């Protein structure tokens, strides 16, 4: 090992280069804290997220301000906001992973097939992608979520359905340039099948892009879920989500602003963390341009 470390000409691995960036480390720490908090929520909180406390409201029946008993105060039903925020992190992370994973999968498959098969399959897939680009994504998501009875999984599905387009376009561009390279032609001459070429020779080259877009995509997904839930068409109470905590407590917005701004800060912090890590990964792994998310 000492022999490897002593060689100054050997370039540092991507993980080490990532850890050299302060902002990326900051992002990783935030993500670790949120994941840890979400997993350990039952051991951290003193009150269950949907327990309506006997002493959880003031004598006038208003939410209580943050104090040593209730770290983030209580909400309109006298529930512990700290507990709801920690359990809400579970919702955000589940949606982030499931919805984003799904949209990454759809985007990669569409982009890969469209980029490799130049004929009518590619043309049809890319025209469909263009069509999806012309949809106002948020409006479409709100529409779909309002039409179906929203549940955690429906919300994840809706987000995946409006979110795969960007990934598909990036993967398409990279696949079409890879497909014309000599080593792919060589593989084909050697008799490799299409499936083998796609999976063993093209997909590995796309991995950096997929990792970068997957990380940045979690941030987009978290924001979309929060917005849908804030409008009341996302994850439904009593399941806590950072968006629906704000939705539920909006009426107390002027007298109890912490009920809006603590979950608001949580959303920004988590989305920011994934953006910071994603951006650093892009610099470390592969320099392709990004869109607005």
């Amino acid at each position, binding site marked *: 090992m000492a022999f490897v470390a002593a060689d100054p000409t050997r370039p540092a691995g991507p993980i080490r280069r990532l850890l050299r960036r302060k*902002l990326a480390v900051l992002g990783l720490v935030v993500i670790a804290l949120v994941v840890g908090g979400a997993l350990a929520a039952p051991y951290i909180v003193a009150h269950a997220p949907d327990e309506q406390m006997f002493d959880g409201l003031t004598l006038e029946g208003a939410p209580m301000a943050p104090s040593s008993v209730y770290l983030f105060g209580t909400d309109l039903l006298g529930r512990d906001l700290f507990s709801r925020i920690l359990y809400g992190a579970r919702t955000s992370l589940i949606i982030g992973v499931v919805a984003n994973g799904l949209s990454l999968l759809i985007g990669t498959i569409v982009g890969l097939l469209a980029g490799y098969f130049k004929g009518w399959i590619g043309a049809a897939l890319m*025209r*469909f992608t*263009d*069509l999806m*680009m*012309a*949809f*106002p*994504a*948020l*409006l*479409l998501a*709100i*529409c*779909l979520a*309002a*039409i*179906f*009875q929203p549940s955690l999984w429906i919300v994840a599905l809706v987000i995946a359905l409006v979110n795969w387009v960007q990934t598909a376009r990036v993967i398409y561009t990279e696949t079409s340039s890879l497909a014309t390279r000599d080593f792919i032609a060589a593989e084909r001459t050697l008799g490799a099948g299409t499936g083998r070429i796609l999976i063993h020779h093209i997909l590995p080259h796309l991995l950096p892009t997929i990792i970068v877009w997957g990380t940045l995509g979690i*941030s987009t997904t978290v*924001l979309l879920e*929060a*917005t849908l839930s*804030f*409008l009341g*068409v996302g994850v439904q109470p009593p399941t806590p989500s950072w*968006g629906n905590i*704000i939705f539920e407590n909006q009426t107390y*917005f*002027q007298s109890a*602003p912490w009920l*809006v*701004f603590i979950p*608001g800060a949580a*959303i*920004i912090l988590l*989305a*920011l963390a994934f*953006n*910071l890590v994603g*951006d650093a990964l892009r610099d470390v792994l592969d320099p392709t341009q990004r869109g*607005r*998310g």
Partner: protein
Amino acid sequence: MASYLLRRLIQSALILLGVAFITFFLLYVLPADPVRQIAGRSASPETVANIRRELGLDQPFIAQFLRYLGGLLHGDFGRSYLQKTQVAELIASRLPATLLLMAAGITCELALGLTMGIAAALTKGRFTDQILMMTSFVTVSAPQFVVSLLLLYVFAVQLSWFPVGGYGTFRHLVLPAVTLGILGSGWYARMMRSSMIEVMAADFIRTARAKGLTRARVVLRHALPNAILPVIAMIGIDIGVFMGGVVVVESVFAWPGIGQLAWQAIQRIDIPIIMAVTLVSAVAIVIGNLLADFIIPFIDPRIKIR
């Protein structure tokens, strides 16, 4: 050039047709029944059947879609299910408010974003640059409704500088427009920064410096005009994200535009209105993309039209 223009126009028309078809399909297969919504829960089966026939909802899907398309060609978006008015009239009465908000919002996002980007590029790698880039990260990570509520709380509730919501005077416009401006600024700041850095490294800038021009003149007369145009042309591509923001911002600030109209219609499953707003937004996006496609090669002749 002319044939490229024609091809892009036909492509755009096909895309709009596709958007119309998919939206119509989604709304047609939707599980919630608008007829029940109109007739009320206690309506007799005959009443329900009558309303269904009146709205043409008993006909096959394709027949309904073709009839809708036929109406569109005459500028007829159908009638609102609940308000009993022509959707075209509703849209026309709401559109000016949205266009005003969009114009103000885009102005704000450009003013904020371009300034941040230029300042960051000129202080590249130093403290100011790092703070500005961090700020741009925060703005792209903030959901529309949180920024809306934050500005509302600070400037309308606490300081009472601006009204809490509504429409009519310039003071009503400030908060929603600034909200949209802040939300979009980060994206423009990052693009402006990289465009500016790229231009500052170009040969003609070295020549200008070598001629002994002042730094201010090099930046303002030589670098800026070259760096700024490609970024401004990106507005066209940005319209889609912007339209989404408009829906949320209009609902929070009670701004009577098509975003608020859409949100109210979605809650009441008023299909003709949802259809119309989606189509109007899609038209805006397609026009924006077309403009970007044509303006970018015009600004920068190095980018060739395929």
